[in-house]
């Protein structure tokens, strides 16, 4: 044995024991959880930074402007500049504000949304928490946002804040129903509330086609309802009434500045990522590749690609549609989305009941029948909602 190999062996021994200790440490549940938290938070924060830039660029291009292009080449340092600005700005709290509630509101807004990000399956093995009632957890956690909006609006002692909070709560409650009803269809058809199992159920593909839920009539309608309601839930345009800056300044965020405002902003974008992630998981096959021969690409890639596509869809819609009026918003939710979601539910039941059809072309027949029902409901409800109401002189009940 040469001295050299002895040295090597010794070193190997030493590192071996070190490695063993390191391995023990690395598999400790606390460490695992901390790492998962750090990765989820860090990845989403980085994505948030990228998306704010892409959103401003995209909106600019939609309006024939170049968008931010000053900070760094093509403006890629814009998020950093924004961050520095937000952190160094003065944090102003109104004198008569309820100090404690005013301070807590952004935290109550952000914390539950980061919790919701933990249950989403990002890849075959990339699930931080696999809850048996994952979908329920998602919605249960989401309700804290309403309370946070109220806390922010009420504690600011500002009429615009309070009006914004009232609008936000009314909107979130109204659109939660279609949101839940559209996800219920998927839960019913999969037979599970676990997000992991829902994704697993969408992997099987017939004739090399993806088995995603969106390629069924109820899935398509459910996805569209879900997307609309999700835009409203995360206060995205055209449903951005709670912070309609031309009407009520900044809504419940009016009296927030500096980093607290940044936290609200972050919560809004995290909410968009979370709800898009849920949409991907429920309807777009989660981390599954579109075609079986592409399954060798890591699942996280497909997840992120779908997330970017959905978020870009939100940006596109924001650049296209004007803001709704409050009564249009309520009509849209209660008279259009709600009945449509219920009818979609019935369609899913029909789809399930006709699963036993055996004659040739049964699948196509089922598809067409179910799609016809959903499309007919869509047309009828839309016509009914858009029918011009008789416009007459306004009658004031109390003023005259």
């Amino acid at each position, binding site marked *: 044995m040469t001295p050299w190999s002895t040295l090597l062996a010794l070193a190997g021994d030493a590192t071996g024991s070190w490695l063993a200790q390191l391995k023990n440490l690395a598999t400790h549940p606390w460490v695992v959880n901390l790492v998962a938290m750090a990765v989820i938070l860090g990845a989403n924060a980085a994505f948030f930074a990228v998306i704010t830039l892409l959103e401003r660029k995209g909106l600019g291009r939609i309006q024939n402007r170049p968008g931010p292009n000053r900070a760094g080449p093509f403006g890629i340092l814009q998020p950093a500049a924004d961050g520095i600005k937000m952190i160094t700005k003065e944090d102003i709290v109104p004198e008569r504000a*309820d100090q404690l*509630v005013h301070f807590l509101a952004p935290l109550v807004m952000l914390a539950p949304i980061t919790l919701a990000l933990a249950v989403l399956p990002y890849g075959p093995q990339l699930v931080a928490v696999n*809850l*048996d*009632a994952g979908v*329920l*957890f998602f*919605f*249960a*956690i*989401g*309700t*804290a946002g*309403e*309370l946070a909006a*109220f*806390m922010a609006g*009420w504690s600011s002692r500002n009429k615009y804040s*309070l009006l914004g909070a*009232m609008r936000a*709560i009314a909107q979130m*409650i109204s659109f*939660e129903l279609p949101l839940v009803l559209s996800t219920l269809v998927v839960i019913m058809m999969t*037979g*599970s*509330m676990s997000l992991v199992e829902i994704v697993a159920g969408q992997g099987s593909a017939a004739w090399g086609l993806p088995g995603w839920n969106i390629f069924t009539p109820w899935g398509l309608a459910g996805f569209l309802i879900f997307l609309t309601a999700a835009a409203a839930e995360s206060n995205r345009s055209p449903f951005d009434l709670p912070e309609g800056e031309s009407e009520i300044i900044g809504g419940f965020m009016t009296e927030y500045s500096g980093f607290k405002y940044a936290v609200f902003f972050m919560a809004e974008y995290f909410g968009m990522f979370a709800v898009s992630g849920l949409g991907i998981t429920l309807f777009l096959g989660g981390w599954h590749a579109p075609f079986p021969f592409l399954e060798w690409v890591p699942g996280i890639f497909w997840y992120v690609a779908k997330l970017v596509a959905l978020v870009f869809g939100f940006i596109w819609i924001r650049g296209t549609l004007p803001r709704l009026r409050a009564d249009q918003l309520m009509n849209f939710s209660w008279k259009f989305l709600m009945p449509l979601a219920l009818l979609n539910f019935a369609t899913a039941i029909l789809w399930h009941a006709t699963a036993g059809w055996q004659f040739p072309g049964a699948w196509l027949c089922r598809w067409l029948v179910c799609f016809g029902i959903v499309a007919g409901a869509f047309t009828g409800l839309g016509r009914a909602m858009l029918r011009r109401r008789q416009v007459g002189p306004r*009658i004031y*009940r109390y003023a005259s």
Partner: protein
Amino acid sequence: MQLAFTIIALLILAGATAAVALRNLVHCVLCLAVAFVGVAALFLLLGAEFVGLAQIMVYVGAVAILMVFALLLTRNADLPATGPLVSKSWLTGVSIAALVFGCLAIGILASGVGQAAPPSPQLSVRQIGEELMRNYVLPLEVLGVLLTVSMIGAVVIAMTDPKPD
């Protein structure tokens, strides 16, 4: 387990006490929401995932928001109350509370809590759903009808609108 239970129990007690003792109504509602979250955490600690999440969804998401709306829509709700904190008929309240507590304590003690706890059943959402849809389908439907009726009643009451003549 013991430590987590202690922390959650203290949180619930503090939230409930503050909900009764604070003078600002909005603060009371927020403290009540904290107590609700604590109860949900207790359910989660016991492994009752579905019940805990439903607790958050119904109590924090609906009941607390309902109270908040009621507060916002009533006049002068955010002015701190000026009356005495303890009402004159406190003796009645305390005796009723003691009676309820006694009944509950007797019921719990009679259920054999002191003995070794049986292993907690692993209840999945699927089992709960099957129980609800097979054994308890009639109560579920009756409750659904009851809630619908009450909602229609509320709408009818709210819509009462004397025709201007």
